[in-house]
């Protein structure tokens, strides 16, 4: 009879995800309040403090002043820090305009974040959100400029096209993984490059290119396919549009799928223990393709949000690095759809606020990237957070029942 270690210090490993991956992504069954809310919150706080230190001491003139006039230097430093964070905060939530901007930027982040989070829940590392966004966006673009339809049909059609485009681009690495074992990290990264250059090329093809232009700019999406703006009746510059509502509905749908449907049960089982899933009669091969297709569809929707929502057309690399920020915010959101919404709003706010900070102080928007990166470092090292803030470690397995014999 084989004897397992009597009392494991951490939960025993199961095949598939390493326990580090599980801890990092937060994928699994239950919401652990401490691990999934407190630690991310403290990670954000820590990152803001560390970012603050960088801002405070990031100015050469003030640093020189410390030698001659430390009092003045200290006050300059504090002012600089205060001005920066006030600008960041005001740019994110200081009024309707900033909130509109925050929501506009949050929408594609939430959708792409869902694409990564679904992968995490199923034990897959989807780094391909950027490529899936590009392809989904191009699908939506074609529907957007090619057909002339009433809005009530045109917008849903563009959305469906974005979903399909993303699902195809996500489904390919899923298929390769399921059938050949090719690791999705490699294939999704490569498909990002392929999508990026494919878009570059397509934008110079006559079918896509804006008439009379030599540079790679697409035709404009017809107004009937554009997501309507939500509050432009107050001020025409408030550009928040239908995309944020779509993003929140999508998050709700993914939550329902993961936690209330048989398909999501299968997704999570495959992620947590593929051998267990196979034993339970689940079709693991099909599931991996399905997971990646659903993930890709969400990213496609994010690409569609850019094309028929925010921009109205496609330009080279029109999704920027949203698909990579999505990895960070899926981690911050602990791979839970609602966590992703919260993290997406935060990152959207940081992006909008960062713009304002850059405009009104001499602190560049790059610091926002630094803060985002620091958040992820703190998330990836929960032991650090627990040590700093003396959060009681409860991720160690405690057996709630002891044996049988009494």
């Amino acid at each position: 009879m084989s004897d397992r270690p009597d009392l494991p210090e951490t939960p025993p490993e199961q095949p598939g995800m390493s326990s580090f991956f599980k801890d990092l992504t937060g994928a699994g069954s239950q919401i652990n309040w401490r691990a999934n809310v407190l630690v991310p919150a403290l990670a954000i706080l820590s990152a803001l403090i560390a970012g603050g230190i960088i801002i405070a001491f990031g100015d050469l003139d003030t640093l020189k002043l410390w030698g001659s006039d430390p009092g003045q230097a200290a006050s300059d430093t504090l002012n600089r820090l205060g001005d920066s964070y006030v600008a960041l905060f005001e740019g994110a939530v200081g009024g309707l305009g900033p909130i509109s901007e925050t929501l506009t930027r949050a929408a594609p982040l939430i959708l792409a974040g869902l694409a990564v989070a679904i992968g995490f829940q199923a034990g897959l590392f989807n780094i391909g959100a950027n490529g899936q966004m590009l392809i989904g966006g191009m699908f939506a673009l074609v529907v957007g400029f090619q057909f002339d339809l009433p809005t009530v049909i045109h917008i849903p059609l563009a959305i469906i096209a974005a979903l399909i485009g993303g699902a195809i681009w996500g489904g390919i690495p899923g298929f390769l993984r399921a059938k050949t074992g090719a690791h999705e990290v490699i294939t999704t990264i490569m498909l990002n490059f392929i999508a990026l250059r494919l878009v570059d090329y397509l934008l110079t093809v006559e079918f896509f290119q804006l008439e009379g232009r030599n540079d790679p700019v697409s035709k404009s999406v017809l107004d009937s396919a554009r997501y309507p703006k939500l509050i432009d009746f107050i001020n025409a510059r408030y550009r928040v549009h239908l995309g944020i509502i779509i993003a929140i509905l999508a998050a709700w749908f993914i939550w329902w799928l993961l936690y209330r449907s048989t398909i999501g049960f299968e997704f999570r089982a495959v992620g947590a223990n593929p051998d267990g899933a196979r034993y339970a009669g689940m079709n693991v091969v099909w599931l991996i393709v399905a997971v990646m297709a659903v993930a890709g569809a969400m990213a496609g929707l994010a690409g569609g949000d850019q094309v028929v929502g925010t921009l109205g057309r496609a330009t080279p690399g029109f999704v920027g690095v949203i698909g990579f920020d999505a990895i960070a915010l899926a981690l911050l959101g602990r791979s839970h759809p609602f966590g992703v919404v919260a993290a997406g709003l935060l990152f959207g706010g940081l992006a909008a606020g960062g713009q304002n900070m850059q405009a009104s102080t001499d602190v560049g928007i790059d610091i926002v990237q630094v803060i985002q990166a620091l958040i992820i470092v703190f998330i990836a090292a929960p032991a650090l957070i627990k040590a700093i803030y003396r959060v009681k470690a409860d991720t160690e397995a405690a057996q709630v029942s002891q044996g049988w014999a009494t």
Partner: protein
Amino acid sequence: MELELRGITKRFPGVLANDNVNLTIRSGEILCLLGENGAGKSTLMNIMYGLYSASEGEILVNGEVVHFDGPGDAIAAGIGMVHQHFMLVPVFTVAENVVLGVEPTKGPGGILDISEARRDVTEISSQYNLEVDPDAIIEDLPVGLQQRVEIIKVLFRDAEILVFDEPTAVLTPQEVEEFFSIIRNLKADGKGIIFITHKLKEVLEIADRIAVLRRGAVVGEADPSTATEKTLAEMMVGRPVVLTVDKGPAQPGEVVLEVRDLDVLNVHDHLAVNQVSFDVRKGEIVGIAGVQGNGQTELVEALTGLRESVGGTVRISGQDFTNASPRQIHKASVAHVPEDRQRSGLVLKFTLTENFVLDSYYDEPFSHGIKMNWNRSRQEAERLIEEFDVRTPSSEVMASNLSGGNQQKVIVAREFGRDVELVIASQPTRGVDVGSIEFIHDRIVEERDNGSAVLIVSSELDEVMALSDRILVMFAGRIVAEKRPEETTNAELGLYMAGSTSEA
């Protein structure tokens, strides 16, 4: 050398794993540490070996307090450990494995002196009668020899106290005898031996002193010359236990499982199951005995749809189920208790409710279309927790938080909790405490008496003997003997398990 544990206490969050344990081991004696799973044996050994640090108490070597920060310190102090799961590099030779980490080198730049390593191995093998070829590749060696390599490894590091964690779990009865003679040699040479086990017979045979651990505390010491299996079992469990399974005679009915000429490949594409044929009838328990790794795993996987067979047929209740999917087999009212509950039987990060519906979630009443019915699932979970006496605060606790015995009960409850015609149970009580073993055995007999056909695969000979109405012995992928438990003995089955094919 004398090693003393004084007042060792180890706390995990919410659990007292070791409770003021006092133990002493001297050169030239064999101390058996007896206890159920979860009694705290492994925790104690890990403290002794520097893997965990004790919450309270101290370790003394030759009367002096020592502090171990890691296995390196323990090894330096003369403590060696042979783990249950061998820590060997399968593609390295015996000599390479033995010297790994403390390699002899020659010349500048520290070039590995493999001939020196080979000489060292040969020297130790001849000194302790541990014959093994220093140039053999580990993965080519049988388990018994791999264990020898582990012992040589420990001796090479000059261990004076050797700790063996469940050393006989993977050995045939004959290999166990050889292992015991090795242990006696080591003892004669003045080594101190700590032997961790829960097998009562072995303890009585080999021990000089017996310490019994229960709920983390030493509940008593016993003298092997006066103790009996029954008294030891009672000390272990803390109450009188029934060591035999109480069951009436079988009333076999029609054939439920019919296996003919089955061939199955293992992961290395070698034939692991070779022309196996047998029947299991309604109302009988058929036990498959054999040393682990003789094709039982592959056989069960083929029967349950987890592995494709390459020849032969499997029929269940008259219908062809050769290479059917796990889902199809599940739908044919087959219960499967898998060999490794944590690897495949459970999703540890899921709640008990989720685990209870793990293989039936796709159908009414637990789901409708693609919509899960969690309320109904929770009711079912609560029913099964009640009926199978799973010790848990609620159905919404993660499976990883349960003890091994309770985890196994979750699986047994899930698989037996519905109407089944065929039960396939692999190592049904592996790593489970004595109390749960009794319970699981009773449920298996109950399934039989309710008219199910039951197939048990176990490497635990006593379990096969106690449960089965018919015993099949598997060796090297073949069924080499069929016996009734009342007309055979452990010794005879042991011979078959070791490959003797002549009918006795």
